[in-house]
C-alpha cells in the first residue's frame, strides 16, 4: 500500500474563530510539503487535524499509512533518564535496536541523564530519534528545525529526504527556508 495523505475542503474552527477553510491538499509517497503562514493562522491545528487528533470543522481526510508526529511537546518523562524514557516508546514501537537511531542523532551519550536536564535541542533530537524507531510512512512535523543547531538541522533535512526517498511522505511546518525539494502551502491563502 502506497502512503498517501489527502485532505478535501477542510475548515478549522478554534474556539469561536474560523482559522482557515476550503483547504485541500494531497501528498503522495515520496513527496514533501512545507506549510507556511503567520503565527496563529492554524498551522499546528492543521497538523493535528491531519494526524487525526482533532476533528476538522468541515471536510474529510484520507490517510493510508501510519503516522509519526513530532509536535512541540516531547512526551518524554522529564524525571526519568533519557534512555529509560525512550525505551518506553521503543517497546511500544516494537523497536529492538534503539542504539542506532540514538547514535545517528548524537544522543547516545546522553542516555543516563534525566530528560529534564536536557536542552531544548537535545530533547528535539531525542524526539527525532523516536521517529526512527519504527517505519511510519506519514511524517507530520511541527517546527522540526526550531531549536536545533546547524549540524542537526542538516541531519534532519537528510533524514526527511531519506524518508521520502524510501516511499514515505512528509508534511512539515517551518518558517525558515529549508534546503529540501518541498512544495509549499501558504496557509494564509485559505484564511477565513
Amino acid at each position, binding site marked *: 500500500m502506497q502512503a498517501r495523505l489527502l485532505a478535501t475542503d477542510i475548515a478549522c474552527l*478554534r474556539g469561536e474563530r474560523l482559522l482557515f477553510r476550503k483547504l485541500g491538499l494531497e501528498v503522495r509517497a515520496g513527496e514533501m510539503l512545507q506549510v507556511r503562514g503567520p503565527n496563529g493562522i492554524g498551522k499546528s*491545528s492543521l497538523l*493535528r487535524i491531519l*494526524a*487525526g*487528533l*482533532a476533528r476538522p470543522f468541515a471536510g474529510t481526510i484520507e490517510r493510508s499509512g*501510519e*503516522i*509519526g*508526529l513530532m*509536535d*512541540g*511537546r*516531547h*512526551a*518524554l*518523562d*522529564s*524525571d*526519568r533518564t533519557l534512555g*529509560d524514557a525512550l525505551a*518506553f*516508546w521503543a*517497546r*511500544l*514501537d516494537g523497536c529492538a535496536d534503539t542504539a542506532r537511531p540514538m547514535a545517528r542523532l548524537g544522543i547516545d551519550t546522553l542516555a543516563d541523564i534525566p530528560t529534564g536536564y536536557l536542552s531544548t535541542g537535545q530533547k528535539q533530537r531525542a524526539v527525532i530519534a523516536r521517529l526512527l524507531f519504527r517505519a511510519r510512512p506519514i511524517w507530520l512535523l511541527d517546527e522540526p528545525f526550531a531549536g536545533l543547531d546547524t549540524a542537526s538541522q542538516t541531519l534532519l533535512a537528510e533524514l526527511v529526504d531519506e524518508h521520502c526517498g524510501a516511499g514515505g511522505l512528509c508534511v512539515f511546518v517551518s518558517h525558515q527556508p529549508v534546503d529540501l525539494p518541498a512544495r509549499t502551502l501558504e496557509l494564509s491563502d485559505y484564511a477565513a
Partner: protein
Amino acid sequence: MRAFATLLRRDLAILLPGGSRGSAFLPLIFFLLVAVLFPFAVGPEPSLLARTGGGVLWVAALLASILPLDRLVAADREAGVFDQLRLRGVSEEVAMTARLLAHWLSFGPLILIATLPAAALLSLTGDTFWRLFVSLLAGTPGLAAIGLITSALLASLRGGTALAGLMLAPVAVPLVIFGAGHLARDDISGALFAAAFSLVLCAIAPFAAAAAIRAARD
C-alpha cells in the same frame, strides 16, 4: 496486551515509592500524621479513641488519596503522551486502566500497612483493626478510581488539586459510609457494599477518564 504491560511498567516506575514523581510517600505520611495528631486533639482516653479511631482513619485514608492526584494525569497530557499513544493505536482506555492499577498500587498497600501502627496509636482493639483493614482493602480501589476520574477531568485546568478534593469527596461518601460502617457492625455486609461500590467505580473509571482526556483534546 504487550502494550498494556509496557504502560503499566512505566506507570509503576513513575508512581511507586522511589519512583520519579516522588510523591508516593506523601499519602502514607499524611495518614500516619492524622493518627499521631488525633489523640492530641481529643485527649488520650483509650475508650474514646478506640470508639472513634477507626472512622477517623477512614477519613484520613480518603483525604490521603487526594494527595497524589495533582500530577496523575495532567503531566502526561501536557507532555503530549496521550497523543503519541493514540497515534500508536493505544487507546486512552487502555492507558487509564494501567494508570488506575498503578495509582492504587502506589498508595493502597502503603496505607493498608500503615493501618497497623495507626491502630496502635489510637489503641484500637485487634478486632477493630482487622475490620478497618478489610474495609480499607475493599474501599481504597474505589478511592483510586474516583481519584483517577477527577484527575483526568481536571487535567486541563491549572491548579486543579484543590478542586479535586471538592469533587472527590461527595462521590466518595458512600465508600466512607459503608467502609466505616463495617467497623460498627458484626457482619461483613458493610465491607461487601464498599467492595461492590469499588468494583463499579473501577469498571467505570477507565472509560470516564478516557472520555475526559479525549474531550479536553482540541
